[in-house]
């Protein structure tokens, strides 16, 4: 029995040095040299100030911007830190809603969101991604349908022709990888940055 304990201790130490320190630190070193932008979080800077990450969704509520999907992330309640409140797009606390398919709360939430959006574009069915919260709560994307749905409202708020905004959306659709993998999507932050560049 005891003759197996020493190899066990030495083995876990050896593996900790190899796989727990050498491996992640070596990958960090290589990544920082080869892909510094991605390795540091794909951060977007404007005039030297970080305004977000290309991969992490952020909240937009102004009618002048395209809106992301609902986010179910939470944060501590400032009045009582032992409780949590809704803090959409909290990128230090990723989470989905975890509401089940027969949840009253889920259905009520979808109904309320759909009612608000239906007013923006009456007659057009609301794309499902705009009324459902994502798995991470940080989804940076909406579907092309979800972006096109918002074109009339954004164009109106900015006083732009709808055709111009629609062209901008179409230019920002990321297609499937090699035409096969994944789903076409539109990165909301990049689209909104382009919108600002077009019409400051």
């Amino acid at each position: 029995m005891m003759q197996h304990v020493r190899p066990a201790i030495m083995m876990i130490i050896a593996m900790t040095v190899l796989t727990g320190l050498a491996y992640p630190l070596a990958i960090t070193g290589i990544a920082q040299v080869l892909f510094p932008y991605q390795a540091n979080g794909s951060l977007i800077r404007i005039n030297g100030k970080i305004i977000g990450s290309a991969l992490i969704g952020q909240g937009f509520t102004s009618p002048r911007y395209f809106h992301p999907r609902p986010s179910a992330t939470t944060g501590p309640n400032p009045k009582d830190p032992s409780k949590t409140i809704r803090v959409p797009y909290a990128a230090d606390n990723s989470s989905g809603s975890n509401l089940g398919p027969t949840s009253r709360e889920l259905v009520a939430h979808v109904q309320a969101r759909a009612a608000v959006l239906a007013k923006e574009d009456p007659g057009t069915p609301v794309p499902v991604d705009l009324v459902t919260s994502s798995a991470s709560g940080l989804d940076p994307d909406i579907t092309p349908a979800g972006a096109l749905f918002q074109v009339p409202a954004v164009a109106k708020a900015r006083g732009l022709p709808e055709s111009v905004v629609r062209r901008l959306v179409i230019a920002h659709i990321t297609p499937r990888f090699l035409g096969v993998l994944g789903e076409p999507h539109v990165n909301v932050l990049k689209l909104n940055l382009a919108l600002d560049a077009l019409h400051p």
Partner: protein
Amino acid sequence: MTGHTTVNGWVQIALYGVLLILLTRPLGGYMTSVFEGRPTFLSPLLRPLERGIYRTCGIDEADEQHWLTYALTMLIFSFVGFALLYGVQRLQGMLPFNPAGMGAVAPDLAFNTSVSFVTNTNWQSYVPEQTMSYLTEMAGLTVHNFVSAATGIALGVALIRGFARRSAQTLGSFWVDLTRSVLYILLPISIVCALVFVWQGSPQNLNAYTHVATLQGGTQIIAQGPVASQEAIKVLGTNGGGFFNANSAHPYENPTALTNFMQELMMLSIGAALTNVFGRMVGNERQGWAIFAVMFVLFLGGVIPEYVIESHGNPAFTRFHVDQAPSALQPGGNMVGKEVRFGIADSALFTTTTTDASCGAVNNMLDSLLPLAGAVPMVNIMLGEVIFGGVGSGLYGMLLFVIVAMFVAGLMVGRTPEYLGKKLEAKEVKMAMLAILVLPLSILGFSALAAFVPAGLAGIANSGPHGFSEILYAFTSATGNNGSAFAGLGANTPFYNTTLGLAMFVGRFLMIVPMLAAAGSLARKKVVPASLGTFPTTSPLFVGLVVGVIIITGGLIYFPAVSLGPIVEHYALLHRVLY
């Protein structure tokens, strides 16, 4: 029935199946060389390092072990690892690489997490980006991502030797199998894949969390860290413990469709290759392909319904004029708890592979799956995670079912059952049954307890049958060493941390010991030559028999429990009953 799925969705699933088949033989050949001690193309680089590890640890690599010694060294190594991981979590506040200033992890949570990572479960009762320091992620959790996976592979190889060897007393050396799994298999593939992940957008840094002034004038704190290096071994070793709470749904863990597809392949590739290792080591690759076929049939039996069900979307939304139909502009379907870049097909494929394997990573939130779509991952785990399965554990779980299937076949014709020329006698069949029955005892026993006591009921997030599904899923996942969750369940309580910790322990070690006993007993046997009466174990009949035994065993044990959760909920949703 399939009107809501898309051609592109099916193409992705088909492509996945083809690539998995194509990877099996080359990876299996390489792994066989590794475990038979033959030189490989990496040997010039790694052999000196391997020798150095043996020298440091005082291990004689020629020293082969009896099954009892093999089991004992595995248990001691796991316990030492458990103790070290517990210590690192408790002390992380005083240790370096902690820019977010994380304090000590609470004792019950540190216990749960240590059991979880040592048993290759990676159940997470905590929110990683709010709990663990970078040092704990790297020198604690990443290490166990490697060694618990390597332990599984070693055990799988030991059982293969049980079938392959004749009149032998030993099953190989646990230390050698462990070291070679890490050095020659897990580490090289992880290095390559981690760098691809960074290229695609996974962060790999030791920076403090980023404070952002958003475009619209708000603030946002973005968690950072050495993500990619852990991500690679998380899926390759079928571990599944996320760097972030949202796991592979988080855009930093799984930024693109390419990383997603790679992760899906990495989860099953070693499990699939081990069937080929098995075939090669017992001297007939077709024996391996027969096992592969059993697994592949069950894989299709999961992924097809999962995709079809989820593509329909939630019937409760239709009256609000919500568009859930697929088109060129959107995937449609049940987008609750899904990411747009993955849509429905990639989410269904991920959910199926992660529970076929004992991985437990998720790229969508299982708690929000439609009722029968939530039953698919649950049933995958209940069947014993033998559909390619966890690295190593999938193969040994499957071979236990093969023993039972051959026993059933033997009973039908009144002959002593045999497999690969080894007579299967009372001891092997008893040990196989024992290993198989330990799992339902833990799953159903603990679920019943949690559905009964207030501390268990307190964790439920959704009311109605879905609440029971959350409990049943938790103990299924923990016992099966999967680690995925119906994550609404509030599991970070002393009750759940303790009971789930015990379930993980039972599901891992109480299954391994009888399995190794069967392996030891098999290795000692002589081989009887095949005769006309020998059941051909490379035939479609064999594949059908094993699939049948797995489904019937699983159905008899779990159907009542599953009907109380997902099946009741399915009919409730059809009649628009909400909770």
